[in-house]
């Protein structure tokens, strides 16, 4: 190996993960969008000029102007404030739903991979079957059982995501399990909990975090879809999917009501997708060559 290549390799190794992430265009744009989103969610109280639910009857259907930069809706509510507070809801929906799917998925995946035997077959086959149902159907069935509300929609989306995380965790855990260090710890007499929580879990976690970034975008889309159908957020919550559903009736009169929440959802989902892509490029050497 030439000296130049060696130093190149050393350089990439020494560079921190974040610098490498920021040097990929996807990672940079994605991270920027996500940070803006987190800031707008965190400081919505300071940034929003009005309350997101305050109705001003005299100001109905105002197109974007100097006072109301993004216009007002059918109740005269300020769209800027609704979008800002909506970002808070959206991030919470994404985080909670992914939290549910990921913790349950990791538990199922680890358990199946570690235990083996008929439990493994049973768990992974049922996961496969649920996976073939698609997340939309599972989420819809859960809402049918629990009844329409934002909380239930988030739970439903969380449950719907479990098969995906369980499958990924399972295959990652199988790879770890076949490595020599794992057999060595068994030979040393490590306990079950030590093997699972000190060896398997920390090693599958990076993979899970990467896919959870992509998972946030799926979850946000699914929850917004449920709200769009009226099965999620209920009025007067400033939820973007619900806002879009309301805009259909005024599509002629106030097209900005349709454009703004749509752009907000699309940008958010794009941000998480790009960030996830960036993570994958940095962590996966095969992907990096492409």
């Amino acid at each position: 190996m030439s000296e130049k290549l060696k130093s190149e390799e050393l350089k990439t190794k020494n560079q921190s993960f974040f610098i490498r992430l920021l040097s990929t265009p996807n990672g940079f744009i994605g991270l920027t969008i996500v940070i803006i989103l987190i800031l707008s969610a965190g400081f919505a109280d300071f940034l929003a000029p009005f309350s997101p639910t305050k109705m001003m009857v005299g100001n109905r259907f105002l197109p974007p102007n100097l006072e109301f930069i993004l216009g007002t809706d059918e109740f005269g509510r300020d769209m800027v404030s609704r979008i800002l507070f909506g970002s808070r809801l959206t991030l919470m929906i994404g985080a909670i739903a992914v939290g549910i799917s990921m913790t349950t998925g990791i538990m199922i995946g680890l358990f199946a991979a570690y235990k083996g035997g008929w439990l493994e077959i049973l768990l992974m086959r049922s996961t496969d079957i649920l996976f073939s149902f698609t997340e939309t159907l599972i989420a819809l069935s859960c809402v049918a059982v629990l009844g329409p509300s934002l909380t239930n929609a988030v739970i439903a989306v969380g449950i719907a995501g479990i098969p995906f995380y369980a499958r990924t965790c399972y295959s990652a855990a199988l790879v770890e399990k076949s490595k020599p260090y794992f057999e060595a710890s068994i030979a040393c007499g490590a306990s079950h909990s030590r093997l699972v929580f000190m060896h398997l879990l920390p090693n599958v976690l990076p993979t899970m975090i990467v896919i959870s970034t992509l998972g946030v975008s799926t979850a946000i889309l699914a929850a917004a879809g449920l709200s769009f159908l009226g099965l999620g957020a209920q009025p007067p919550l400033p939820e973007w999917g619900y806002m879009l559903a309301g805009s259909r009736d005024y599509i002629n009169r106030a097209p900005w009501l349709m454009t703004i929440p749509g752009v907000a959802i699309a940008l958010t989902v794009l941000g998480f997708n790009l960030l996830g892509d960036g993570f994958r490029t940095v962590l996966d050497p095969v992907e990096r060559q492409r």
Partner: protein
Amino acid sequence: MIRFLLGKIVMAFLTVFITTILVTLLIHLVPGDPVRIMYAQSQGSTPEQIEEVRRNLGLDKPIYVQYFMYIEKLFQGDLGYTIRGGQPVIQVIFQRLPNTIMLACAAMIIAIGIGLPIGFFAAYKKGTIWDTFVMIIAIAGISMPHFWLGLILLFFFAVELGWLPVSGSGYMNLILPALTLGLSNAAIIARLTRSSMIDVMQQDFVQTALAKGLPKGLVLRRHVLRAGLVPLITMMGLQFAFMMGGAIVVENIFSWNGVGRMAVEAIFQRDYPIIQGFILTFAVVVVIVSIFLDTIYAFIDPRIRRS
């Protein structure tokens, strides 16, 4: 090959079997008394009437008895009766299922027609500005909520230009929902195609063919495309299931009279027999399509055909 297909068919039966269990359990998972919830919206039902409904639905019997009752009726083609209107559920579903399947198939054709050539093109131009451009479009397409895309198409083609009807059930009405569903899946198919083709292009037999001096176009058509399409076929089953799932939302935007719209209405009205029937139908359709695709796969892939 027969072993491969038999395995798939067993898996399919298992899927439908588990669905029937889930569907019977569904009504018991509802917090509170499902019969009361179902009738909460219609006023003036007496306790006697509620008891009668409970008996009719078999809810007064133990769960396993209910399950066998459900299966027995299922074999007779009976999925129960709708709460509102008292129509046979199977009739309501079969009236609307063709619409949903038509929508999903039209969308699938659009998605493959656009996604496949674009993905192939990106793989061919791998690493160039064209590839980057196509992949940016694809990631933007994946991030675009299909319900928003639907509204935008509705706004431009039906409201602004007035070329297509806003809603209804003719062939002209199929265009916008199919386009909505098709375009948002074209992006996914483009990405899948690209990575599948790139995998094949890096393999030795393609390198050999190129090294022999065969024209690049010939290698792409005869070697890369053929080998790259095989793994894609297996993914199409999942894509079709996504289409069916996406149809639920899209049907509601365009008031397309399919099973998805029926299911959402049923959820609002707490019409559990319809919801149960819908979930079962969805599972059966997805399973049939995936068996069909697996059969094609088995015939195309010589490794399976000759085993």
